[in-house]
């Protein structure tokens, strides 16, 4: 099942990827087609996060975003 989540700031698709030996969550940024796969342990660890912890990833000059054409 492929789910799409959009806001006025971003659009992503989310689905379970089963090509490997175990399931992973596949997240695709619909604006630049960048993809990340997260395994169950990584996802479980995310539940420890506050939204503030994610802050560095939301800084466009501190993450891979700076290398994307168009800056998105």
């Amino acid at each position: 099942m492929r789910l799409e989540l959009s806001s006025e700031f971003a659009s992503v698709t989310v689905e379970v990827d089963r090509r490997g030996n175990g399931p992973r969550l596949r997240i695709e940024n619909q604006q630049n087609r960048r993809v990340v796969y997260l395994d169950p342990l990584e996802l479980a660890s995310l539940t420890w996060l506050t939204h503030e912890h994610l802050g560095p990833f939301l800084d466009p000059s501190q993450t891979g975003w700076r290398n994307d054409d168009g800056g998105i």
Partner: protein
Amino acid sequence: MSTLAPADLITDDWRLHGSIYTSPEIFALERERIFRTSWLYVAHESEVREPGDYKTTYAGTQPVIVARGADDGEVRVLLNRCRHRGSIVCHDDAGSANYFRCPYHGWTYRNSGELRGITYDDAYPHLDRATLGLVRLPRVDSCAGFVFASFAPDGPGLDEYLGNARRYLELVARQGPEGIRLSAGAHKLRYRGNWKLQIENTIDNYHFGFVHRSFLEVLADRMGQPPPIVDNILHNPEWRTIDLGNGHSVHEFGDPETGNNQGQLGDLPFNLILFPNLCFVGAQVRHILPKAADRTEVRLYPMLHEGESEEMNARILRAHEGFYGPSGMGGADDIEVAFDRVTEGLQAIEEDWLQMSRGMHREQPGENGILIGHAADEVPQRAFYRRWRKLMAEAA
């Protein structure tokens, strides 16, 4: 424009100068002296229920974001203006986002306001980011689920500001078995006229039998006899207008807990005005947004009853739409006559005074400093303009 000082635009015998409605200079002064000093309605808590929820609206004349903190759940009111080059940061009416991103150059902010990041920031070696968050309004408070904010860091608290009006706001919040919610959203109307025309019209019973004649005729046709609303307005002693103080006013259709307007306009047993720009009418929250001396936007939010059946809430919506909706039988008449024709008439400035004295000789004092008048008297309008004149006359 008039050369009169603001305090002289309203006379002791209740004549109002037309420039109150037409002058850009008066409007500029209102922005400063009314909207930067008063408590301003911005949201109902049902609109930002979950952490990360936000809505866009206006605190008086200024665009704001009302956001519930992603991690702490606190409701904040932020100016909707990127600190870089001024674009609004949030465009949608409502959404859920723990971070915002400006559409212009991609600057990101936490939904509590702090600047989070700047795209290609090597061009800003010395920028003090800590000072460049979205600007927060210094005071935010709520009463019965209605959220207000103020640009004034000091001054009376919300309870004191609402005063005698607080009781009515609490009654509004208790309409449904478990309260109310604004989940139906809003419909918006814009007109080329002054914002105060909508305030005055909201609680003006005098016009009903004239502007809404066609609506009354439809009702009479359906019921087989004239509806009682006009007779009640003119003759029912339990229908009364009240100056609640601080610019607030109410029109009661009998007992404020059980009364009924008998006009198929929605179930609220009173019309309420909270100074300066929030009204409750029928089944709706009416938020009046001044844009310029001659431009106004009005947002009408039907109040649905929490804990009621879908059928009941559907009936509330249909009744609301029937009179106030874009194709309803009442709202369009108000826009045509009370806003458009009045604005046109006010261009005739050779004799530029209006009369707002109806029933002033029969205002009766009540408890807690209130003034009580007949249903079709201009008590609510005078309540509004007493406060307006006081604020406008104060030194900046």
